[in-house]
């Protein structure tokens, strides 16, 4: 409780000098807006520095595996490398540990990507560094067969996760190499070690020119208590209890960058809008998730005076979830929209609808192998996202979030069956004090999975959480005037 009070006190001063939250854009004089340097303006970049850094990082990791952790996969030879090229030990899909494959590789990619971005490389070109670095790793740094899924998740997952980290870093440490407090500097190092290194190496002089300053942000930190989580096998007529988890601590955070509603913000570059959320529940059955979606290509609708403002286009999607019923992770692209409508003076309706194709997805059970026949599928798939949130600014909000994944088992033997996973969360919050809200969350889940015509099962899950939300502005995710 004491920690909570401390956080609340600190959050009061969120709108620190230099951030958009302090002065509403509408209050800025027109001249000041015009005089801001264009986002595409001053460019200094080095293609060579991140290339050396990416090589050094990969080779350094390779050396770490050989010298310190003594990983068997790192013992390479001319024969193993030749086998990767001549096809005797060629490209395949691997089923390494879930966290390694679905979080470790994207995070590895995000580090490489941040080397490139912070050296001034634009979004898409920075992704090439991921691709080449991952290719080099698969060919030369492992004696195992190169994995197609690793190549996909390191490249695309690394770009999406990396761009979120880079833009968050740039919010904390602005471009230009100016003086910042030690706390900010430390936070910057934790968010993006690569960008921190390059800011030092290149004196803060490198800029990709596509990260606008002072983005409209919405941030909510939500610690809470998970009262219960229950999983049932609903394959038969009578549900069978699989797991009943008692009270747990839950921590969650949501960040919306380029939040809708700010009439001065434009969405000219990939990830000028993104939505990222993360959560962790412990102890006992540990559950964690990280969901990212960012606008890659598209446009905005709704003018300066329109009550409706929205975005549409192609979104980059990266999901990692080890939630109530299963583990699921995917990297893909989706087409959809996100919108905010003003219904009254302080009443807003926000919504998102996205349908995506997943180049690579993995889904399986949450350590219930002993109870189930088989525990995962990996393959291509589709994803749907549907969200609606009704907000009364300064008072509270009610929200429904639904995600659905359908993952085929096409990438591993036997190449049949599927996973169909649905999460729905109902979430209500009411403001009780300045920057503070209490709420109740009801997560529901359903997993239907199939390993052949006669082997279809389903698991249902439900839970309840009490939450305490800290917000910098009592706006419940609404930005703008």
């Amino acid at each position, binding site marked *: 409780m004491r920690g909570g009070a401390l*956080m609340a006190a*600190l*959050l*009061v*001063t*969120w709108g*620190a*000098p*230099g*951030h958009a939250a302090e002065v509403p854009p509408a209050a800025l004089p027109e001249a000041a807006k015009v005089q801001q340097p264009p986002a595409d303006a001053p*460019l200094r970049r*080095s293609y*060579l*520095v991140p290339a*050396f*850094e990416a*090589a*050094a990082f990969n*080779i*350094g990791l*390779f*050396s770490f595996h*050989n*010298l310190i952790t*003594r990983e068997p996969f*790192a*013992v*390479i030879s001319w024969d193993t490398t030749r086998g990767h090229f001549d096809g005797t030990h060629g490209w395949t899909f691997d089923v390494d540990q879930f966290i390694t494959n679905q979080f470790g590789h994207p995070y590895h990619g995000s580090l490489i990507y941040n080397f490139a971005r912070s050296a001034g490389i634009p979004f898409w070109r920075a992704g090439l560094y991921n691709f080449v670095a991952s290719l080099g790793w698969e060919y030369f740094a492992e004696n195992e067969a190169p994995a197609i899924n690793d190549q996909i998740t390191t490249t695309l997952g690394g770009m999406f996760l990396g761009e979120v980290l880079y833009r*968050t870093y740039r*919010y*904390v440490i*602005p*471009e230009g*190499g*100016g*003086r*910042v*407090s030690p706390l*900010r500097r*430390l*936070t910057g190092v*934790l*968010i993006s070690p690569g960008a921190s290194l390059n800011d*030092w*190496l*290149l*004196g803060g*002089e490198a800029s990709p020119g596509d990260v606008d300053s002072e983005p409209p942000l919405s*941030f909510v*930190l939500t610690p809470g208590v998970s009262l219960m989580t229950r999983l049932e096998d609903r394959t038969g007529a009578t549900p069978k209890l699989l797991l009943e988890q008692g009270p747990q601590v839950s*921590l*969650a*955070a949501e*960040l919306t960058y380029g939040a809708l509603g700010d009439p001065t913000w434009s969405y000219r570059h990939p990830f000028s809008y993104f939505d990222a959320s*993360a*959560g*962790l529940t412990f102890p006992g059955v540990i559950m964690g998730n*990280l969901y990212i979606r960012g606008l890659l290509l598209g446009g905005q609708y709704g003018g300066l005076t329109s009550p409706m403002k929205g975005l549409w286009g192609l979104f980059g999607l990266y999901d990692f979830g080890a939630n109530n019923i299963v583990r699921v992770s995917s990297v893909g692209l989706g087409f959809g929209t996100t919108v905010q409508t003003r219904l009254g003076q302080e009443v807003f309706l926000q919504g998102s609808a996205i349908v995506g194709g997943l180049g690579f997805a993995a889904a399986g059970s949450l350590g219930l192998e002993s109870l189930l026949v088989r525990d995962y599928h990996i393959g291509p798939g589709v994803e749907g996202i549907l969200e609606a949130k009704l907000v009364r600014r300064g008072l509270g909000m009610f929200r429904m979030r639904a995600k659905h994944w359908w993952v085929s088992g096409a990438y591993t033997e036997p190449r049949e069956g599927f996973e169909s996973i649905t999460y729905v969360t109902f979430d209500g919050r009411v403001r009780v004090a300045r920057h503070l809200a209490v709420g109740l969350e009801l997560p529901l889940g359903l997993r239907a999975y199939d390993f052949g015509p006669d082997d279809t099962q389903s698991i249902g899950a439900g839970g309840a959480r009490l939450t305490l939300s*800290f917000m*910098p502005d009592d706006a419940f995710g609404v930005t703008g005037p």
Partner: protein
Amino acid sequence: MLPLLLCATLLGATPATPPEPPADGSTPRASVRSRAPLVAGIGAGLTLSGTLVWLVANVQEGAVASLPASPAEVQVERWKRQQTQLGGIGLALVGLCTVGIAAAMWNWAPPPVKTVSAAPLLLPGGGGVALSGTWP
């Protein structure tokens, strides 16, 4: 991710000092080029260390080969030394990459000036276009 976002949140309490514009009389920041020798030194040190690890493990592998042990045991010991050699080679290559970074920093030049202009020339009975430009 969560701890990072938590830190980012708490930063709201930290007054942000905007980047300082260059001011007359202030101490100029160290240039990129001035840091290059330090980075090159680190790179050289890593290269030297990695090479040493490689050489020592190489010698050890030779010594292990003559141990009075079963061939299987000798093979296991040789693999361990070979893995150490790989690590040493990798460390040396990391050093070389670091030296490469230092070289790029040493050559970190001001942004090239690139200007192109075109002007129409209208003359009695004719005309033309004059192009002028500056390239690095």
